[in-house]
């Protein structure tokens, strides 16, 4: 078993109508429940606020941001356990964010066996 992180990207989900939000939440709950029952969820993670601060460089300059394209903003993360990368990718395909033009970035977590 290896660990992966799913980074969810997409436009602001709170811009939907309450009815749409409710439907979308239901779908997420179903997806999460299935992953959890099969033992794939290491840590459910959190949604993220869409903006915060970005601290940069030696000067440690602080900027508002991130100012990426709306669809490129990470708005949540989850830690997943899967056999390997193809398996993790397969698991990510059930994510409801894909139905509304979002994306899931699947990244293996680097762990050194000591």
């Amino acid at each position: 078993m290896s660990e992966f992180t799913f980074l969810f990207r997409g436009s602001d989900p709170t811009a939907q109508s309450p009815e749409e939000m409710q439907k979308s939440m239901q779908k997420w709950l179903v997806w999460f429940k299935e992953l959890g029952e099969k033992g794939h969820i290491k840590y459910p993670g959190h949604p993220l606020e869409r903006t915060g601060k970005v601290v940069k460089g030696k000067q440690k300059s602080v900027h508002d941001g991130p100012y990426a394209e709306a669809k490129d903003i990470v708005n949540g993360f989850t830690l997943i356990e899967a056999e390997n990368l193809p398996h993790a990718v397969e698991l990510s395909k059930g994510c409801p964010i894909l139905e509304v033009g979002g994306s899931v970035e699947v990244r293996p977590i680097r762990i050194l066996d000591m």
Partner: protein
Amino acid sequence: MVATLTRVFGVHNLALAEDVVQDAFCRALEVWKFRGVPENPSAWLLATAKNRALDVLRRQRTAHTFAPELGRLLDSEWTLAPAVEELFAANAIKDDLLRMMFSCCQPRLAEEAQVALILNILCGFSANEIASAFVSSHAAIEKRITRAKKLLATSKRLFDVAAPAEFAARLPAVHRALYLLFNEGYHGASAENAVRAELCHEAMRLAALLLEHPLGATPATYALSALMCLNAARLPARVDVSGKLTSLFDQDRSLWDRKLKAEGIRLLELAATGCELTEYHLEAAIASVHARAPRAEDTDWAAIVSLYDTLMLERPSPVVALNRAIAIAQRDGPERGLEAIDAIEDRDRLAGYPFYPAALGELELRRGRQKIARKHFLAALALARNPMERRFLQQRVGACQRGDPPQTAILESANRLQGEVTS
């Protein structure tokens, strides 16, 4: 929640209150996606809304003037949090709902607008749901709500429920709005659906809230609540297993909700104090005569006719007159019933009402004139407002052709036409 926040922000900031609720809701759903729905979601939402309210008040304190009567409390950081905390306490929320209910029944608003506003602000129905219940378009309802909210926002403050004189003056309008709300659910033109039953429940919930308030618990409020309980008791039997509308006469009375029936009769007894006799008293009394009859043929039609006689004196309407004629037919036979219908002065106002020709058809059928009856039922069919009414009337047209033995199959009908109440 909007009601409470409007108390915090002031009625002129109604839109802000709605935004905060929507925002709290959306934020909560985002978190629940990841963490699952908590055990007590409404408490969670309330807490989120409360915190958002505090944020907004802090951020905009200088830019806005919030509820004028709370102004000083909300201005100082020392009193802000406890003041908001108190406003969100359970008791305060009940008062907020009442205050909002009375504010929605602004006399400058048309009655349909008042009802739409109550459904939207107090019951949390979306414009779509309201449109489906009123058989209207989403756009029309949205426009109606927006306009009503604008008008509401021009008032400086919410209705003061602690002022007895104003309370008593506004109470009849509140009764009427709740009555309409219930009737829309019970007799409305849209097809029988979940939203319709919910309208009835919301009306009953708000009426119960009114009964809890010392100034609200008047004989008329008791009568209105009794009427709602007695009618709602029949809801389970109104549609049979195959989804067909069933007339009051053919309903399986064992399906009537006994608890609601008993509650309705208890409330009606409580309504019988003082010298005030409202139409709600009379309609509840009629409903209680039906409720007390174990079988349709046991119904005390003489009592019902005399109650309708009084109702005609108190609040005459062509639909009341039609219902009275049907009761007369039950008591004295179809000929007398048809004569009574003939005597309705303003029966041209019933032209668009499907149960007017249906009643004529039923009575003609009962005196054995199938051909004329069939014509009436076809006319009724052309006026039917939803698939259920259509199916019911088709079956009656069929009954004329087959020469079925006449049944007493007249649907219970509302005592008001849609839109008539405003006259």
